[in-house]
């Protein structure tokens, strides 16, 4: 028997597969495709203090083996999420991680504090790396001091474990990881999207109304693997890996690089069953590569 279970701070995962924040809404749409109880965990869409409409459309564009998005953190606000979205999700037997966003340290604190009080939530994911929000989100994710500061403040108001989601748009991702580690982060999520752009040749304008957007999908996989590998060597926190995963081979590759579990984002759009299928196929694939368990595989790609 291949053991898929992984125990992470706050998250007892029956398998290492979870949907990535923002790519799964609040679960309802996907629950029409399969039983969400199957998932290792569910990471819900970013919550801000107030309801947000987000950016103008177009909000997505396709790129070679990837896509750009500039949704702009559209969400019903933290209270709306707690009241309208969590009750439904909590009917499934799978832990829920809430993604916390904001434009100021105070907003992060307030959102985190409210979410951490919800009995439906098992962990928080601190989204300091959304490239599509102008007012400040991006700075937290690219400055180690600010990142440490917001992590520290959120840790103080939350009694649930806090995973910090790192931005790849930085010179030194290891420095960022160390900064949030020393600020008390319980885990890392890596990576968020890379900032990119496309142009409409006919209209001669950026395709996205927001001009730039976040690049996700298979195109960014090698960058995600490199960052996870580098951080794993130097930082002692569990990593939830993501960036272009669409096959069990990809899952194993992320585990080898150093991820303890993985999240699947963009691939849900091409195949709504992807998470469910990956969970079904993972045991055979691990066995094929000679692993008894997921934990056995994590970090095994490092030269020793």
């Amino acid at each position, binding site marked *: 028997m291949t053991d898929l279970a992984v125990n992470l701070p706050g998250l007892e995962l029956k398998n290492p597969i979870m949907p990535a924040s923002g*790519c799964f*809404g609040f679960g309802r749409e996907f629950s*029409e495709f399969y039983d969400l109880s199957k998932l290792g965990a569910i990471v819900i*869409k970013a919550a801000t203090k107030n309801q947000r409409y*987000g950016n103008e459309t*177009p909000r997505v564009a396709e790129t070679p083996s990837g896509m750009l998005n500039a949704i702009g953190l559209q969400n019903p606000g933290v209270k709306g999420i707690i009241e309208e979205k969590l009750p439904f999700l909590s009917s499934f037997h799978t832990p829920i991680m809430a993604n916390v966003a904001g434009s100021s340290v105070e907003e992060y604190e307030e959102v985190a504090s409210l979410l951490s009080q919800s009995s439906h939530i098992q962990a928080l994911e601190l989204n300091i790396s959304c490239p599509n929000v102008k007012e400040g989100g991006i700075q937290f994710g690219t400055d180690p001091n600010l990142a440490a500061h917001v992590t520290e403040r959120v840790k103080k108001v939350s009694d649930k474990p806090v995973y910090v989601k790192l931005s790849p748009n930085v010179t030194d991702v290891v420095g960022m990881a160390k900064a949030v580690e020393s600020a008390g982060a319980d885990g890392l999520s890596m990576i968020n999207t890379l900032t990119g752009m496309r142009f409409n040749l006919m209209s001669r304008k950026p395709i996205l109304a927001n001009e730039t957007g976040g690049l996700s999908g*298979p195109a960014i996989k090698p960058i995600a693997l490199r960052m996870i590998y580098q951080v794993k060597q130097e930082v002692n926190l569990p990593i939830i890996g993501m960036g272009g995963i669409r096959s069990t081979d990809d899952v194993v590759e992320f585990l080898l690089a150093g991820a303890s579990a993985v999240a699947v984002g963009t691939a849900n*759009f091409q195949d709504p069953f992807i998470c469910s299928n990956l969970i079904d196929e993972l045991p055979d694939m691990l066995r094929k590569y000679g692993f008894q368990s997921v934990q056995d595989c994590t970090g095994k790609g490092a030269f020793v």
Partner: protein
Amino acid sequence: MKMEWMTVIENEPISLDTFKMVLSGDLVHLMTQPGQFLHVRVGDGATNTLRRPISIADLDYQAQQVTIIYKTIGEGTHWLSMRKPDERIHVLGPRGNGFTTEHVCNQDVLLIGGGVGVPPLYYLAKKLTQQNNRVTIILGFQTKAAMFYVKEFQGLGETIVMTEDGSAGQHGRVTDVLPKYQMKTDLYFTCGPTGMLQAVTQQMAKTPGYISLEERMGCGIGACFACVCQTTDQEDGKGYRKICMDGPVFAAEEVIL
């Protein structure tokens, strides 16, 4: 069942850069409303990350066949145009809420379509005539070479063709002839480029109508918030609609264009 590898029965050019594709599969039985769309996977699965939304143009339940009509504008539609009979295509759908026709009987209905907004109106026109409505159809095309399905529409009701360059039908845009039909219309349905929808809804402000919107989509199932539009009602609890799920068809006054 929400998705399926459907079989290509036919895939032929029917006018300038425009193809008609007939697909068969079990999914057809779930397709109920004109205006719903198929979310079609393109490419070999690796290069193209996003599916392409294409409207249902016609349905044949007996043969288990659905027809789509698409214009080749980029990579995905070009890939579609290269498919040969017997090849299989992965289809997610039907998605969205289409044109509601249940209670529309014995009325004077006006259909206004522009370019690739024309296909969904065909199955709609068929349904409406079956329900004893008197259907008038105004179709707008760029030029004569881009015209398609005119004869098919003529079999269903009075059909007025407008071309922007005057190479066929009347010279001008669909909105040029709207005044003539406005007064004798109980209900209208329209689908086409946003500019056309804006002009049509303004001119038809006094008539109840339904519009079908287009937007770049991610998931196509309501989860990613790529395809939203704002509601006209400032007091609306959410303030937005998802085109892929709440639409693509909306009451003309429901959303901001």
